[in-house]
Each structure stands twice: as C-alpha cells, then as structure tokens.
C-alpha cells in the first residue's frame, strides 16, 4: 500500500518538474572561464562557458582586476572574439601583470559569479600557426630532398624580438599513418632527406613561443617526389653483369691452371728416402722385415774401415790351386783375422767376434781351416791344415758339417787308417798327448814313413775322445819313453798340450785326423768322448809348445814347452821337407829356417798361425 503511494508521488513529481522548469526562473548557472589566450603577447582573449541560464535570458559580463590596483574593469570587447568571449586589445593588455578575471552571468532573477582566474599574459601565449608553408623538391647529387619553408604568423612580432618562436615540422607519406617529427628551432626553412622515390608527402608546420603553447598545425602541403628508382636499378644491373663476367673469367683461369695450383697449394708429400726402406714392407706391416731390410751391410762404416785395417782381405779360395791357397792362407794368417763373414754363411753378423786380436786369429784360423776343410771336402784331395775347432760355437758347429763327409775317405786305405790311428793318437789329453804326439812324431821318422803323419796332419782336440785313442796315446807315450828322446818327448809334450790348448778354449768338438795319403788328411769327427785324462785336465793347462828349441838333423823342429800359447802341434811336423814353422808364438817365435816340414806343406794350412794362443788350435804350419 505504501509502495503504491510512493510510486504515485514519484510520478507526480516527474510530471510537475518539467512544468516547474518551464514556468519557473532561476538565477543563471555559474559560468566558467574556459581559457584565455594571447596570440602575440600583445592582446589576449578569454572565453567562458555559461552555466544553466535558468530559463531566462542571461547576460554575461566579464570583470577583471589588475594586480596592482583594485579597480575593476569590464571587458572592453565582447564581440570581436565571438560569443562568450572577451577580447583585450593592446591598450588594455599589460604584460607581466596578473589579471584577475571574473565572469558574471545575470538574468532576471539574479547573477552568478564565476570563479576568478588569474592569468599572466606572458604565459598564455599561443601563436597562430605558421603561414605560407611551401614545400619544394630539390636534388642533391641526383638524390632528391624536400625543402620546407614558411613564415611566422603575421601577428607575432618576431622581428623586434618581442616574441621568440620555435618551429616544428612533421612529414609523412600519403599512405602511412605515423608522422615524422622534425624540430626546426627558430629557422624558417628546413630540409628533409631520405625520401622514397615516387611517393607523395604531407608536410605540416607549427610554432611555439619560448614560454607558451604550441600553435595549431598549419594546413597540409602535398608534394610528390619524382621517381629516381630506375636510375638506381640500372647501376645495379651493370654491376651484376660486370661481376658475373669477372667470375666467369676467374673460373676459366682456375680451370686452366688447376694442376699447377694444386701443386702449389697442396704440394706432394715427399716419400721417405731411407736406404733399404721398403714401402711395401711397411704396408704389409711386418716390422721385423722392415728393420732387417734397414740393416745395411756397411753400417756402421767406421767399424768396417777399422776392421779393414785390422783384417786381412778376404781370402779367395778357389779349388784348383791348393798350394796357392795354402800359401796364401799362411801369409794371410800372419796378418790377422780373416773376414770370415763372407766365407761362412753365418747369419750372425756380429763382427765383434772377430774384434779381439786373439779371437780373431782363432776364428780366422778356424775360418781358414773351415775353408780348407770345405775345400777339401769338395776336392777331397787337399791336405787340410789343422784347424782349431774351438772357435766360436758357431764355427764349431760347422765342423760336423764339414767333417761329416770325411768318413768316406777314412775307409779307403789302410794307410789311412793307420794315419787315422796316428792322428787319433794326437788327440790329446796332455800327458797322453805328449807321448802320442811324440810317438807319432817319432814313429814317423822311425818308420821313415811320412805317411803316417804326412807332411801335414791335423791334430784336433776333440772333446769327446774315445778311450781307444787314449790307448794309443799311452802306447805312444810308452814308445816315446822308450825312445828316450827327451827332446822329442818334451816336444811331444809340448805339442800335446799345444794340441790341448786349443780345446781349452773351446773344448767342444774334436776332429779326427785321418791321413789318406801323404798329402791328404781327412778329418773325421770323433764321436767318442775325449780322453778325459788327456783332454780335460790338460785343457786347463796353459802349456804350449811354442818355443823352438832347435832343429835336429832330421829337419825336425824341436819345440819346447813354453807357457805360451801355441798352436802348433805341427811342431811335430817332423818333416823332412822344410817345415815352415808356424809355431808362432806370441812370446818369441823362432821359426825354423828349415823348411822342415811340418807335416804339412800345402795342406797345412793354417789357420791360425803363429798364434800362440791357447784359443787357437794347433795348426799345422803351412807354408
């Protein structure tokens, strides 16, 4: 119920208010001063907004008061500036003076004052926009640019310096949205660069006093930039063509000189220049082969040269001439070691084994002996010198090979056997040797047969001597004793140890000497063990017969036992023939002048001669 009443009242009110409005008058609403502006700092205008007019015709009045006086003045001009405005002309305008302005709205019912506004003309300056803005297109080295020029608003007195204006320009392309701003300062002309060819530009200018407001933008100026794009394009086309041409030329040149360029830039890698270096071996990957290939025979050169000095030249052993050989050998033997390397197919290239003076001789002697033996094998006729088998183990090893075929000969003749026997007798063990040797020695002359011993015979000290050998030795000894030739026995003794001496060094193998005939002596390896008594104990003895005591009537060389190395068993060579004595002894050697032979003549080769080295073997003298 109440609600309905309220609603009715509301409605009534609504109905009546317009009626009341229409009929009733009220004093005018309060006007408000919206703004006051001075375009040139000489005059100014104020505008106000009227409030509600209250239904009655309202009049407005503007009153102002200057700061220094209390006098109220009314606006002198209401019309010049338009409706609801007040224009202050030059006479009424004072600069640096505060104005207190009030607008009053008056109607029949009353008047309403607006709020006062304080202004200082200096700070309300807003000039008019610049005038006569002109834009032209100029060219700077074939590149176009815009030149904008204008004039200040005619009212602004910039000439006397009363007002100072700064300007601003904005530019944009016709189709674009954003403006490009340029600040021009106080000048009245401006250049714009970086234009797009063929585009239409819009230009506007505005100004502002040093302390004031910006003016409105001037009216738009349109300008069209001419096309200069085609000029650009032609240049680029030209450049592209030119560069393509150059590129082609370069390519052609490169192609022509590809090889030399390749050689220049990527020089070929030089191959290795090492003597004996085989690339194939390297590729195969067998290092041993490579390194062995690298081993050159004449490296190191110095040693070889020294070697040369020390060594004797190689012996050239050739089959037909035994004697020559022997002689040669004998001579050579004196000089030094032989290069046995070549003779032997010994893979061991260590020449060091030949370096030692003594060893050299030994080995050379051995080598020579070996050679001889080999020759003999081939020939089967030569008498071989006694060679000490106690060379290097390597050499000794060859003995068996050398001597293996020998047994063929052994069975030939009785004489041979006898000689063999005899030879066997020579194998030593010292004491036994003595008698044996002597016996043999003695027997020969006794028998007058040289055959037994032959001009040359080899005495080999074999490690393994058969006991039967000893036997004859003992027998020989006995015989010797029977002969009671002291010298001989001594000699024999001497000889014996001499023979023994060799095995001292290398008591590894012994070879049996078997005489085939006068000139040929065959060597046979003795399987049997050495005559212990004779050999071994004798071995350590360093006795040797190296001194020649004298020569007997029979052209025998008498040797005395000396503590020297002697390799000469051949001292026994009791040779009717001149024996050259190869008993060279390191200490003192007196060779017999007599050509009594030692057993050997040609066959005797010596390996070692003159070497009175225990290491050496008893070698029959050769000459």
């Amino acid at each position, binding site marked *: 119920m109440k609600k309905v009443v309220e609603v009715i009242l509301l409605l009534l009110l609504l109905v009546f208010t317009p009626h009341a409005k229409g009929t009733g008058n009220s004093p005018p609403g309060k006007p408000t001063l919206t703004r006051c502006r001075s375009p040139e700092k000489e005059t100014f205008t104020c505008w106000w907004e009227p409030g509600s007019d209250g239904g009655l015709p309202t009049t407005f009045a503007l009153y102002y008061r200057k*700061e220094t006086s209390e006098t109220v003045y009314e606006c002198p001009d209401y019309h010049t500036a338009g409706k609801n405005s007040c224009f202050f002309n030059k006479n009424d305008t004072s600069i640096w003076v505060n104005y207190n302005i009030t607008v009053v709205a008056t109607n029949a019912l009353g008047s309403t004052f607006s709020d006062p506004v304080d202004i200082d003309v200096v700070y309300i300056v807003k000039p008019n926009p610049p005038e006569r803005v002109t834009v032209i297109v100029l060219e700077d080295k074939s590149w176009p640019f815009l030149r904008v020029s204008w004039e200040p608003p005619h009212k602004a007195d910039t000439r*006397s310096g009363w007002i100072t204006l700064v300007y601003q320009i904005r530019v944009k392309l016709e189709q674009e949205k954003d403006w490009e701003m340029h600040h021009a300062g106080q000048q009245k002309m401006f250049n714009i660069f970086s234009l797009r060819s063929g585009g239409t530009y819009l230009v506007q200018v505005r100004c502002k006093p040093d*302390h004031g407001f910006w003016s409105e933008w001037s009216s738009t100026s349109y300008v069209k930039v001419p096309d200069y794009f085609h000029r650009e394009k032609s240049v680029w086309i030209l450049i592209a063509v030119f560069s393509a041409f150059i590129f082609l030329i370069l390519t052609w040149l490169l192609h022509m000189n590809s090889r030399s360029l390749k050689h220049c830039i990527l020089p070929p890698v030089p191959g290795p220049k090492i003597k004996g270096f085989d690339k194939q071996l390297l590729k195969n990957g067998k290092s041993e082969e490579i390194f062995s290939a690298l081993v050159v025979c004449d490296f190191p050169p110095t040693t070889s040269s020294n070697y040369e000095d020390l060594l004797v030249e190689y012996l050239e052993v050739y089959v037909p001439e035994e004697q020559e050989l022997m002689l040669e050998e004998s001579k050579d033997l004196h000089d030094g070691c032989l290069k046995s390397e070549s003779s032997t197919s010994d893979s061991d290239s260590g020449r060091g084994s030949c370096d030692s003076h003594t060893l050299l001789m030994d080995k050379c002697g051995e080598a020579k002996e070996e050679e001889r033996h080999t020759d003999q094998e081939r020939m089967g006729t030569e008498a071989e010198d006694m060679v000490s088998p106690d060379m290097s183990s390597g050499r000794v090893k060859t003995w068996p090979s050398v001597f293996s075929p020998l047994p063929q000969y052994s069975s030939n003749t009785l004489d041979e056997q006898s000689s063999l026997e005899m030879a066997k007798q020579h194998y030593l063990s010292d004491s036994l040797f003595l008698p044996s040797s002597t016996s043999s020695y003695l027997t020969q002359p006794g028998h007058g047969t040289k055959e037994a011993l032959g001009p040359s015979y080899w005495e080999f000290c074999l490690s393994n001597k058969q006991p039967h050998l000893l036997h004859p030795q003992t027998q020989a000894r006995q015989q010797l004793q029977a002969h009671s030739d002291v010298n001989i026995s001594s000699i024999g003794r001497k000889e014996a140890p001499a023979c023994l001496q060799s095995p001292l060094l290398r008591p590894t193998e012994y070879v049996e000497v078997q005489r085939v005939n006068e000139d040929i002596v065959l060597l046979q390896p003795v399987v049997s063990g050495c005559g212990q008594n004779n050999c071994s104990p004798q071995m350590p003895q360093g006795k040797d017969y190296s001194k020649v005591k004298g020569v007997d009537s029979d052209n025998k060389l008498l040797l005395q036992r000396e503590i020297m190395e002697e390799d000469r068993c051949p001292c026994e060579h009791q040779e009717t023939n001149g024996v050259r004595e190869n008993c060279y002894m390191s200490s003192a050697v007196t060779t017999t002048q007599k050509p009594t032979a030692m057993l050997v003549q040609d066959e005797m080769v010596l390996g070692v001669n003159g070497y009175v080295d225990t290491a050496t073997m008893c070698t029959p003298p050769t000459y």
Partner: protein
Amino acid sequence: MDRAVLLLSVLSLGVSSQPITEGQRLFSIAVERVHNLHLLAQRLFTEFESSLQTEEQRQLNKIFLQDFCNSDYIISPIDKHETQRSSVLKLLSISYRLIESWEFPSRSLSVGPAARNQISPKLSELKTGILLLIGANQDGAEMFPDSSTLQLAPYGNYYQSLGADESLRRTYELLACFKKDMHKVETYLTVAKCRLSPEANCTL
C-alpha cells in the same frame, strides 16, 4: 674576379659589423643566460605549486593578488609599445636593476638546496654581463635621461624584514615574482639585442 668581389664584400661586412658583433655576442650570451634563469624559475615554481595541496593553492591564489613583488618599485615597460619606445640603454639599466634586486633574495628561495645555490651566482654573472653591455652601449650622453628609472629604492630591507617568516605564502610569492622578473629581463634584453642588430630578421 668573382672570388675577389666576394672576398671583399665579406671583409667589408666583417669590418662593419665588427663593433656590433661584439655587442651582439654579449647580448646573445646575456639573453641565453637569462633565458636559462627564467626556465629555472619556472621549474621551481611549478614544483612548488605541485607540492601544494589543493586547498592551499586556492588560498594562495586569493592572496597573491594582494601582494606584490619587491621589484614593483622598478618602473619597467609593461607592454610592447612601451618597451619599444624605451631606449636600449634604458632597457639595459632596468634589466640590471632587476637582476640586482634578486641577488640577495634569491638565497632565500628554499625550494631545493641545489636551486638556491645555482641562482645567486648566476644572477651575479648576468649582472656583470649587463653592466658590460651598458658600458658598450653608453655612447651618447644619455646617462640618466629618465630619473624614474634610476629610483633605487631600498629593496634589501623588504625581504629581509620578512625573510624570517618562511611561510608557505612567502615562498610562493617569491617564486612567482622571481619567475616574472626573469621573464622581463629576458624580454628586454631580446628586444634590445634585436634593435641593435642590423638584420631585419631578428630571429637568429
């Protein structure tokens, strides 16, 4: 031939403009300095005003009209007409006096310690420059044509008496007056400079 003519003309210009150039240079410097001072004053005032409450601002507006600046006793042209009617020397002297009047009170400008430090020496320098300009332009016997312009009222006491009262109102007034006076000097100097320069177009 053309080059010689050009060279001669330039030289003549240089020679003829020789005495004025110096004055113009000094004027330019003075105008620039006072312009900067005015900007500074404007900034100070704006900062002060923004720091005020709305209520205080309204009150200040009401009060401001009743007060006046210390430099009001200095009669100065207040419109363009008067300014243009005044001689250069008059303008310079007025400017000098205005600047001088603010040398001491500027120290009491309490809006920011930095501003206070800057204003006083700048004013001194400007005063020196204006004095130079006066000396340069004092050709003629117009030493003191207008006695009104030389009325040197004691100004120092005015602010000193009220210097103790560092009220908000006082600060506001000081800043406003300072700003106004700086603008005055700027305008006078600019007008004087443009009057002396032979170029028709004064806007350099």
